[in-house]
């Protein structure tokens, strides 16, 4: 894809705003539409765009699939772990009131933490799925499509 200079330039312009937008959707999700699921997908989409332009090997170089597999499990464990922590603190599973003195703050903390877990799992799963499919592909010329 070395000859696609327009694609390379446009992707270079697009990827940083995509990553920032994903973080905005993740951490502003309590105030505007969005949350972990959407943020994770947008975050993964930025890396997929990079891979579409620069090739799958360049992507594997910056995000090793093994690390992604670990991250996808860690995200789910952050969610479930929050539930276990609240249980140990004497509340029901995922009863966020245990997380802070002020009940409203406790709820907000709980939501931010579990949404972070959701975002982590969704982003790494989407990216791993893409790598799993794309790394099996034989090399395709543009004309093959």
């Amino acid at each position, binding site marked *: 894809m070395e000859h696609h200079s327009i694609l390379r330039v446009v992707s270079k312009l697009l990827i940083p705003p995509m990553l920032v937008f994903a973080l905005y*959707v993740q951490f502003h*999700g*309590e*105030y*505007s*539409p*969005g*949350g972990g*699921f*959407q943020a994770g*997908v*947008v975050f*993964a*989409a930025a890396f*997929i765009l990079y891979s*579409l332009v620069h090739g799958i*090997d360049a992507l*594997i*170089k910056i995000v*090793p*699939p*093994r690390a992604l*597999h670990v991250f*996808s*499990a860690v*995200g*789910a464990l952050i*969610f*479930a772990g929050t*539930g276990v922590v609240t249980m140990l603190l004497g509340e029901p*599973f*995922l009863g*966020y009131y245990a997380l802070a003195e002020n*009940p*409203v703050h406790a*709820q*907000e903390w*709980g*939501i931010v933490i*579990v*949404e972070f*877990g*959701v975002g982590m*799992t*969704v982003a790494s*799963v*989407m990216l*791993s*799925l*893409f*790598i*799993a*499919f*794309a*790394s*099996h*592909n*034989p090399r*395709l010329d543009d004309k093959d*499509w």
Partner: protein
Amino acid sequence: MTANVIGIAIIDILLFTFLVITAIAIVRVRNLFAVAMLAGVFSLLSAGLFVTLDAMDVAFTEAAVGAGISTVLMLGTLALTVREEKPPSHSVFLPLLVCLVTGAALIYGTLDMPPFGAADNPIQTHVAPEYLQRTPEEIGIPNVVAAVLASYRGFDTMGEVFVVFAALVGVLLLLGASHPKRDDDVADREKE
């Protein structure tokens, strides 16, 4: 107000028209690359319909997952298989009859539905007002969808996250964690 309603009605009619055209094209076209792209278009149009229904969170998800990631994954799968759909080996009339009968039954079912958007619909009188009332007091965040998703229905959402994780495990078991040769490549690079 009426101008607004008419405007939304026109947008709805346009989106539904394109949706039907896209669906018919998906059925008719035999080139699977075109089908994958049209499926993305279908998702994007659905996202537009969700926006006119004021369901921003759903529209966002549909646009990102349906039109974005699903299309990429479908194209990735397509590269592993053939590009052309085989012509049907049997008559299309029985499937068409099944579709028409099912569609007619569904449309017959909608005749019993309460009027669209009415204030006394079951959806407006069951748990929704309770969530809308309790969220500002108990959770203090403006996005009620996030409050329901992560707090009131947190256990369900945890299930969803594990479903996403299970999907990855399934794909990795079927396709293998990564291509053996690529693994060596990465290992070589890490040594350097």
